[in-house]
């Protein structure tokens, strides 16, 4: 940390100032000129928090994607289909059992199992052939999209959150002061808070797994030099299977999350594939912290865009991607 400050004094000052301004905007009661300039504090805080929670969802999808890419150099373009399948499975299980929480292990296990099948039956046979793998994954995603349309139809599915999660949560952020002097506190959807907390827990979990366990050590070694790892006698195919299953399972969990605060429907697979591609390109291919930062940036850009520049909201995320590709092609956290 102090090393960074010494190497980049100007950037450090800018970052400190930006964080200070942000904290002030979050906690202070806004003066009138600021409200007139950019609208009410309620809108700003909501955009901020929504951006962070949306980033949480994007992180869940993109972390599996980036993990698989980092280890196997396999650009899995069927990742969005795994997300969508997770959503449908989650809906069926929560509808069937009546327990929302059941949806998560169900989606993780079933989609993870599909991941194992894909790796074992398909990708293992075309190791190291990038173009072939890419084309095959596109094919798989098209076939899966049609199969899911066949099974579940084109309807919109909404995974019902349990009653303790529905409705808003009163937070301690003051958004305005009434003329009587009473403070107005921000109300924020409970379900989004929980989803964000869950993605932080999962993110930290992945980081610990990668950095503090033997399996994680193998995975990291595999990312750096796969052939050398194999030469030391590690059964690399097993590691591949585990990572693919885990990445696919994460996509499945993300599907349940997405189905809870958005909806599950045909077309979502492409949307989330695109989102995770953008996130991973911005954050850096193969890096978990990169996926987190990329997801946060894209989520915030989408939400702030949707309120402050609705017409250009769609362009904004791609603009960020273009900028990153132009100035730091390996991604913010990627290694050159």
């Amino acid at each position: 940390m102090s090393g960074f400050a010494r190497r980049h004094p100007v950037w450090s000052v800018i970052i400190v100032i930006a964080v200070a301004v942000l904290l002030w905007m979050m906690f202070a009661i806004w003066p009138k000129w600021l409200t007139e300039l950019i609208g009410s504090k309620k809108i700003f805080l909501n955009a901020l928090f929504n951006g962070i929670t949306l980033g949480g969802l994007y992180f869940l999808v993109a972390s599996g994607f980036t993990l698989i890419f980092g280890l196997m150099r396999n650009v899995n373009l069927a990742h969005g289909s795994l997300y969508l399948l997770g959503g449908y499975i989650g809906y069926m299980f929560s509808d069937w059992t009546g327990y929302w929480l059941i949806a998560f292990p169900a989606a993780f296990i079933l989609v993870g199992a599909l991941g194992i099948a894909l790796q074992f039956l398909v990708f293992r046979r075309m190791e190291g052939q990038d173009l072939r793998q890419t084309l095959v994954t596109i094919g798989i995603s098209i076939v899966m999209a049609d199969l899911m349309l066949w099974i579940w139809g084109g309807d919109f599915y909404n995974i019902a959150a349990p009653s303790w999660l529905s409705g808003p949560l009163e937070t301690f952020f003051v958004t305005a002061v009434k003329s009587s002097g009473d403070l107005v506190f921000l109300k924020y959807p409970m379900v989004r808070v929980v989803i964000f907390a869950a993605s932080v827990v999962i993110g930290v979990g992945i980081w610990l797994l990668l950095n503090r366990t033997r399996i994680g050590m193998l995975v990291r070694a595999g990312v750096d030099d796969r052939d050398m790892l194999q030469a030391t006698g590690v059964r690399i195919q097993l590691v591949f299977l585990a990572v693919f299953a885990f990445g696919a399972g994460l996509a499945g969990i993300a599907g349940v999350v997405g189905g809870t605060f958005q909806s599950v429907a045909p077309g979502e697979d492409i949307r989330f594939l695109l989102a995770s591609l953008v996130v991973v390109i911005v954050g850096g291919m193969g890096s978990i912290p990169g996926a987190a930062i990329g997801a946060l940036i894209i989520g915030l850009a989408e939400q702030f865009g949707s309120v402050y520049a609705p017409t250009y909201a769609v362009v904004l995320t791609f603009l960020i991607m273009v900028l990153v590709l132009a100035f730091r092609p390996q991604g913010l956290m990627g290694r050159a």
Partner: protein
Amino acid sequence: MSKNLLAAVSVAALMSASSSAFAQEPLKIGFLATLEGTYTVLGEDGKRGFEVALKELNNMAGGRPIEVITASTDASPDSAVRAARKVVEQDKVDIVIGPLSGSEGIALRDYSKTQPQVTFINGISGAQETTFVNPSENFFRFNMDGAQWSAGLGEYVFNEKGYKTVATIGEDYSFIYTQVFGFALGFCSAGGEITERFWVPLGTKDFGSIIAALPDDVDAIYLGLGGGDAVNFLNQYQQAGGDANLIGGTIMVDGTVLNSKGAAKAALVGVPSSGPQADDWDNENWKKFVKDYQDAFPPEARFPTPALMATGYYNATIAMGACMDEVKGDLSDGQKAFRQCLANLEMDAPNGKIKLDENRQAIGTNFITEVVEDAEGNLSNKLVKVVENVDQRLGIDKAAFDKIGLPSRDVPECKKEY
């Protein structure tokens, strides 16, 4: 492999060449609907309406068997043109039925001008511009546009519901502009005020911040969303604890949203809306159509009652069948007689009488409805009021209507006199 392909192609070519000698040559119809993307469910119901009509026609039109070529679009204009080019230029269809969505209709109107040998009958797309600006000679629309579908709603919510100020939120494209246009004309001339208009890109899935930006000092919020966007909005609106009065655009309270799985739709109970049909309308033709629709598909493969997409495609196909019968299947002379018949056709459709104006645009019946929940928890549109003979200018005279301008993000301006 390629040899087989070549053989198949030449056999097909020979067959199509030789069959033109027979009078019973099949009638080729290109069917376009949104069978992918945000509006998939809407397109699927359009297809059901089309199939009910084909069944009623016994798959024959003017003594010729009907051959259908289906092409899918995704609600974007370029996908509609791509699909239309495929069926027109590659499959050589005689008639195109479609498209479904607003901006697709405008694109196909322009495309239809380049293909004068083909007749285009609109499926259910409802942008005003499609038939109002530079109409195309061979493009017919037997459904009303989005503004006509709003006819009477503004007056109703102002007078009966007592909403004086309204904010609107809608998807940023032509059909919703047209819907808000129709709503605003009625609401503002009744004395209401539209304080703000929010436009979100079509396909928006996270409305969190937009919901927070909705003003809380208005009497009601007008929702001009459709398909998956509508479901997402309602879901997140409930999660955010929203409790404002809502007014629904036509596709916001359509069967496609009312029948979505999950709790999101519950926010719609009691919401007033308007559109070209009401689920419980006590009318012989409507009841017959509902029954035909229900008989044609098993319950799990359809909605409880047809959504307006099914009705629109049904009407378009029945109109086509009626006129093919009248001209006895003769499409010679650039389909002249057939088009003449379409232009003068007066339909006794399931959703009221329909005839066409000089731009080949429907004049029809509009319905004010409210969403009700039955004992099993199913939602449907209950009829409140019928507005008859709604034309494209909503009863305003030509000079005054032209002065308002074309529907867009901020047209029409909200005022008492137009």
